């Protein structure tokens, strides 16, 4: 298989890059000028693209690769990939569901606790020597609060299961109500936001869910409400979020993703009611390795004519 040409267009775990290099004829096209050079010389031989949350093939790139057979994404979210174009051209697409569900759910609870209980601020308080001047102030209890989940898919359900261990009430919004669910359904995001203490964004990013967290939703969540985004930065109207936090219209936020990563709005740095993470959602050793193996196994299955493990298209 060393003669099969594969194009890498997003940042991935070094282990994955090394394995791709070993097994295939790997071309790196993460930065635009690199990609342009590769396309100039090798566009007609590339049979597979490896994508990630930081980069994926849009319609133009798919058009430029006449021999493209498969896009394998090192992520569960595929908003960077033009799925419609792939369908049209008969290009298969795989992602990495399930392996990261638990970790993302764990991190979500960790983020909620970090915001409500001011864990990061407390840690700063101790390290700066401020504890010698006085005890820390009262924070907000998590147990027993109402959690609103936007998108009750695998990750949303895993978050709900963990929150139940804290005696939280769970409610949700989904495109369609889930008849088997024991949780309370709200038919709109604004109603969900009005009726919960913590709102967790756990749905895929699509044109419909772009900026699904807007000014109206943020105001409905309110001065005591907390927003947790472990989805995609573009789920949230970021300038609206920032002004709501600065003006006190929103109680707090825990963010693992941002609209223009790696850019983080600087106005957030001075706020004690936010926790900011550098997109670590699935960043545990075990998960990233499992994700890498899924990418490799899907590619191998495809080129051996076997069924794909986790196909989306």
């Amino acid at each position, binding site marked *: 298989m060393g003669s099969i040409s594969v194009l890498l267009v997003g940042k991935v775990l070094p282990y994955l890059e090394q394995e791709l290099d070993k097994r295939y004829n790997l071309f790196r096209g993460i930065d635009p000028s690199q990609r342009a050079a590769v396309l100039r010389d090798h566009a007609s031989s590339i049979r597979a693209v490896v994508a990630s949350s930081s980069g994926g093939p849009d319609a133009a790139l798919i058009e430029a690769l006449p021999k493209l057979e498969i896009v394998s994404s090192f992520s569960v979210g595929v908003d960077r990939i033009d799925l419609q174009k792939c369908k049209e051209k008969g290009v298969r697409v795989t992602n990495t569901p399930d392996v990261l569900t638990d970790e993302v759910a*764990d991190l979500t609870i960790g983020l909620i606790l970090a915001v409500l209980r001011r*864990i990061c601020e407390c840690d700063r308080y101790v390290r700066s020597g401020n504890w010698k001047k006085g005890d820390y102030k009262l924070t*907000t209890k998590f147990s027993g609060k109402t959690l609103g989940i936007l998108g009750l898919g695998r990750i949303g359900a895993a978050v709900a299961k963990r929150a139940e261990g804290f005696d939280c009430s769970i409610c949700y919004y989904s495109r369609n109500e889930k008849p088997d669910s024991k949780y309370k359904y709200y038919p709109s995001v604004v109603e969900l936001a009005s009726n919960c203490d913590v709102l967790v964004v756990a749905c895929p990013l699509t044109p419909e869910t772009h900026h699904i967290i807007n000014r109206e939703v943020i105001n409905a969540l309110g001065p005591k409400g907390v927003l947790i985004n472990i989805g995609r930065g573009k789920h949230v109207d970021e300038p609206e979020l920032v002004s709501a936090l600065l003006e006190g219209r929103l109680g707090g936020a825990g963010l693992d993703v941002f609209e223009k*990563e790696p850019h983080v709005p600087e106005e957030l740095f001075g706020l004690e009611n936010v926790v*900011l993470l550098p997109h670590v959602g699935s960043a545990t050793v075990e998960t990233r390795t499992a994700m890498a193996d899924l990418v490799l196994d899907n590619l191998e299955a495809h080129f051996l004519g076997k069924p794909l493990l986790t196909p989306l298209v």
Partner: protein
Amino acid sequence: MAEEEEVPAILVLASSFGIDIKSQNPPKYRFLEAFSSNLPLLQFLQQQQTLPPSVRAIICNALKPVTADVIRSLPSLGLVVTASAGTDHIDLTECRRRRIQVVNIGGLFTADVADMAVALLIDVLFKISAGDRFARNWGLSKPLGFPFGSKLGGKRVGIIGLGRIGGEVAKRLEAFDCIIKYHSRNKNPSVSYTFYSNVVDLASNSDVLVLCCPLTEQTRHLINKEVMLALGKDGIIINVGRGALIDEKELVQCLVKGEIRGAGLDVFEDEPNVPKGLFPLDNVVLSPHAAALTLDGFKDSCEYVTQSLDTFFSIKPQVS
């Protein structure tokens, strides 16, 4: 018997009792907020124009000790109300000698303390505080190089002290698919978790140790070098009990040398002093004994504190 004409003076040693109690009209009690003063007790009372014998009750929490000296300075002290699960910060022997009632409302904060234990554990495993520091310093390059965390599912969690708090910690971590084990003075027949009669054995068979037991002569420095080495290089210690449960000097050494993977600490041997050796480390999360400091907890507790005071002061003082 003489009626108490003066509004009773209550010595408040805990900084978080300012809510609601103060908004009584007319004031039933006069709260002397000693927590914000650096003066020694007797000088403070003098400054408040209060004679020591008029202080008959204290409100406190685990952050300020009610020592024998404090008790002896207040000859009419009859009630100590503490908002903490533990009572090791109160000289109970002196209280017994003087027949001072000690009311412990710590049970109201059980969930908060359990929440803190889980918060610290997830933070250490996923490097949340370290990540927050990192994100606030982001340059232009995407930090895929930020060190990875480790998943909770499947981790063996050894709880030391399976009382109310330990039980609530266990319940929460089960929802994350952790495997719960424990060490307690006695085995609990109503739980299915694996019991270890020996702490070193528990440590050898755990990935995480969560300390939820009281501080007594038997549990002082329970977590020593032997236990930490048995826990091992991938092990994490979470302490929401008392600082002195751990040999702190040894802990710092083990963390610095990588003999254990990390720690989440809400309590320390000599609060508010924290060993400076911990400050440069990214594998520890430090908290200023804040496990029970939530608004919700305190709103609930105000009712109980008020009840305790009302009950105590409606009992007329005996004339001996």
